[in-house]
């Protein structure tokens, strides 16, 4: 290895190499040689340093680690120095400096958040271009992680869904990351230590982004829990249980002896009376309603109805039809709202027959009003619907018979024809 440097107006070139026996140093001095001929060992190099002819740093910069170690110019072993060098290199060259928690770069993030939270609504094109410029500068100056910045942009959009400026901000971030970052928000609510349901604003934000084509349904759907298979299994078990309970209504155990009848502990033989049946029904409805909070796909469906994205709402209706989404009052209301708002523009014809049937699995009163609405919308669909409508008992849950019939109908819809 050759070491060259200017020193006190002399150009010095020193050759350092390895020979068979050990380290040696040779040199050639250009100009007036002030170092005598014939020095050739690490001792001489040391002497150069000690006599302050050549600064130590010059050697440290230029020589091999082994040489430095043997001429006592470094304090740590050659191997350690080498590994340290690799570490430093890695840090300098192969590690990105990015801060993704607010606390790690509070000035940068405070400015970003302030900027995004005080954008007035109805801003012009210039304003959005200016905002994009500021965001990029903030990222550049404070080494903010663009993915986290994107996350914060989404948070602020969630707070102000009507502010159109965000629609100009979102495209500056990679599209492929959008659904992942959004999905990460859903994953938070799947943690065991978090008991809150996903806020409806997140569903609406997601639905809005899907509607605007910033992300597609499938990529966000992958993040949602429970998975379809699990939800379907759970639902099957649930309706089987309900049916089972309904079948017990009015059943009399003829084999029971007097003693058995007296024994109140024997649950299996006790017939369920009318009030118990009604309680059961209320309980079941309550149990179902908790499903809406825990099921993220259903939440997203609500989001679509909320932002009037009929197309994607339909896609989810079809996918989740096994769960009878319209059975939930909120979803059913959302559906009515959409129907009322969209009127003729919704093509119910495009609805699969299964999904149409699905609409009728909402509460009976609601389905009746739905049928009337549908009649106004589309005669074709109405003709399809009437036979189903006729099967709906008028005062379903009022009598015991009605209840069991209703459950029976439910069963028919699930098992038989669907």
């Amino acid at each position, binding site marked *: 290895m050759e070491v060259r440097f200017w020193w006190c107006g002399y150009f010095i070139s020193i050759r350092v190499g390895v020979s068979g026996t050990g380290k040696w140093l040779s040199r050639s001095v250009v100009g007036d040689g002030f170092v005598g001929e014939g020095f050739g060992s690490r001792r001489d190099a040391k002497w150069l340093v000690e006599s302050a002819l050549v600064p130590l740093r010059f050697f440290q910069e230029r020589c091999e680690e082994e040489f430095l170690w043997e001429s006592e110019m470094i304090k740590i072993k050659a191997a350690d120095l080498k590994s340290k060098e690799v570490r430093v290199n890695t840090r300098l060259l192969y590690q990105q400096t990015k801060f993704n928690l*607010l606390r790690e770069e509070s000035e940068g993030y*405070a400015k970003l958040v*302030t900027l995004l939270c005080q954008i007035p609504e109805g801003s012009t094109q210039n304003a959005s271009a200016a*905002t994009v410029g500021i965001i990029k500068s903030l*990222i*550049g100056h*404070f080494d903010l992680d663009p993915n986290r910045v994107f996350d914060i942009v989404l948070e602020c959009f969630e707070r102000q869904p009507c502010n159109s400026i965000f629609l100009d901000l979102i495209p500056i971030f990679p599209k492929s990351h959008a659904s992942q970052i959004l999905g990460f928000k859903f994953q938070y609510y799947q943690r065991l230590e978090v008991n809150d349901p996903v806020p409806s604003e997140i569903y609406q934000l997601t639905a809005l982004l899907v509607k605007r084509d910033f992300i597609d349904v499938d990529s966000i759907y992958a993040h949602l829990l429970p998975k379809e298979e699990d939800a379907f299994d759970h639902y099957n078990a649930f309706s089987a249980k309900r049916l089972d309970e309904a079948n017990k209504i009015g059943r009399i155990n003829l084999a029971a002896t007097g003693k058995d009848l007296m024994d109140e502990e024997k649950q299996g033989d006790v017939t369920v009376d009318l009030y118990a049946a009604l309680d059961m029904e209320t309980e079941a409805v309550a149990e179902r309603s908790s499903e809406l909070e825990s099921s993220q796909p259903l939440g997203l469906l609500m989001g679509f109805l909320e932002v009037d994205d009929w197309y994607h709402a339909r896609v989810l209706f079809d*996918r989740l039809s096994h769960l009878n989404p319209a059975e939930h009052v909120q979803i059913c209301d959302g559906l009515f709202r959409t129907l009322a708002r969209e009127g003729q523009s919704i093509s119910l014809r495009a609805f699969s027959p299964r999904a149409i049937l699905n609409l009728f699995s909402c509460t009976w009163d609601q389905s009746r009003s739905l049928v009337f609405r549908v009649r106004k919308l589309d005669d074709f669909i109405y003709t399809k619907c009437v036979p189903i409508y006729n099967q709906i008992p008028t005062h379903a849950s009022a009598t015991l018979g009605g209840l069991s019939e209703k459950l029976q109908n439910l069963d028919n819809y699930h098992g038989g024809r669907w």
Partner: protein
Amino acid sequence: MGNRASGEGPPHGSRVGSSGVKFTAAAVQSGQKVMKYGGSIVDGESSQGQIPRLLDIVLYLCEKEHVEGGMIFQLLEDLTEMSTMRNCEDVFGYIESKQDILGKPELFARGKLVMLRTCNQLLRRLSKANDVVFCGRIIMFLAHFFPLSERSAVNIKGVFNTSNETKYETEAPEGISIDFNFYRTLWSLQEHFCNPPSLINAPGKWHKFTSSLTVVLNTFEAQPLSDEEGNAHNLEDDAATFNIKYLTSSKLMGLELKDPSFRRHVLVQCLILFDYLKVWCTSEKRANENVPNVASAGVLPGEAAPGKSEKELPSESMVGIAFAKEEIKTSEQRVKKLLEMTPPKGIDFLHSIEHILERERNWVWWKRDGCPPFEKQPVEKKLVQDGTKKRRPRWRLGNKELSQLWRWADQYPNALTDTQRVCTPAITDYWKPLAEDMDESAGIEAEYHHKNNRVYCWKGLRFSMRQDLEDFPDLNMVLRGSASWALPTEVRARYQAKPSERTKRTKKEETTQRNKQKIRLHATNSSITKSPLHNSELLHSTLRKMAAYAAMKPCQPVGSSHRADSQD
């Protein structure tokens, strides 16, 4: 040293590299922009320069795997290294424009490290004050180029940006109207904001911080902003004057105190800091309850029990922490109150900030857990479930075959009228392969027999019907099972009616017997002539004899013969 070990191109690669060097050197000499050098200039519009052309070629070759995939990255690194910053902007523009190709998996794998190195070196050369937009571009490119869970980008240790120093004047300038002590107090806060762990580790600093903060909050409270000052705010003007880094000139102090955005920046920083400290306080309590220490070196003392902090907090025990907690709580209340009071729309603003801090927890936990990747890929099979896409295609003429035939006819109008095509093969020629099958000496296995081919049989029966109706029923027998659909409907219905178990068996026996006889008959014929297959006359006579044999029995449709069988 050693950082260039990877990706040294093969021999022909270095040749490309050297011509790149030549171009660059020539460009530098001619004083032109590197990326524009050599481009012809027509009507003021310059076409592509020589270096981009060279890069395009190499990129193409890399993409098609004609040269080692890492070479394009190597070239780009070399190019940025020997270009001035102004030229680097063009080079980087080229990189951005080719992002999609460079990001392809096969190229990405070869060049990601080189690209990371290139970008890091570029960032190091750029000034954080003057080239912020370019810095931002590079950082955003990296975020796009690498997957979301790239380990090198997540700051896994949770390092704080301590390099973000805020310098301010220490000597009061002559003739200044503001309170210089306040000026110093305000800006001294920044040193704590950029390094929160220092507050935890040194109690002295904590006291200094709280007293400074109290002074600042007092001043803010004493000078509330009016609504006019709040409404003077306009985004477009803001953008022109937006200062990325705080401006700390003492001359600006008075203006800054009247600027609602400035006030918000400082207050939001306070809330962020408190958010961090609060978590730390609660976890410190846990640490005292002998929860095992998890976090290493206290880089992220929050969330997990901190390791070092216990030792380094000598004077403060539980009491001190409780006290600090109380202080944080009161300060937080004051800051929130101030934010609420700051126009415009202070309350909304505060809610938004609280919302963002609340959601921050997701990321804090993520970092606590070691930044696990959170990407999920969509399930492929779900993609087709879409209602409209799933619908089967409609064919113009009922089904795909017919539609295709129709289209062909459109394309080749002569094809159907060609005299060579409009002809019906002679029935004898047509049945030749069938006869071949029946020749036992040929030893063709049953599964390869032509009678299994329904289209062949159907066509044959149609021909027979037209040319040789006499043989038709018998042929039908031969092809039984595969050709029943050629029969008239009511006959077919009877044929297909499920016979009882017994009838089925007898039918089977009878069929085999008859077939045997037929084959025997055929065999005698073939023994007469050596090659019956090439003699269509003979085949024809065979078929005739077959027909004659069939005629010995009353010539009945298949179904009725069953009934006769089952009766005896």
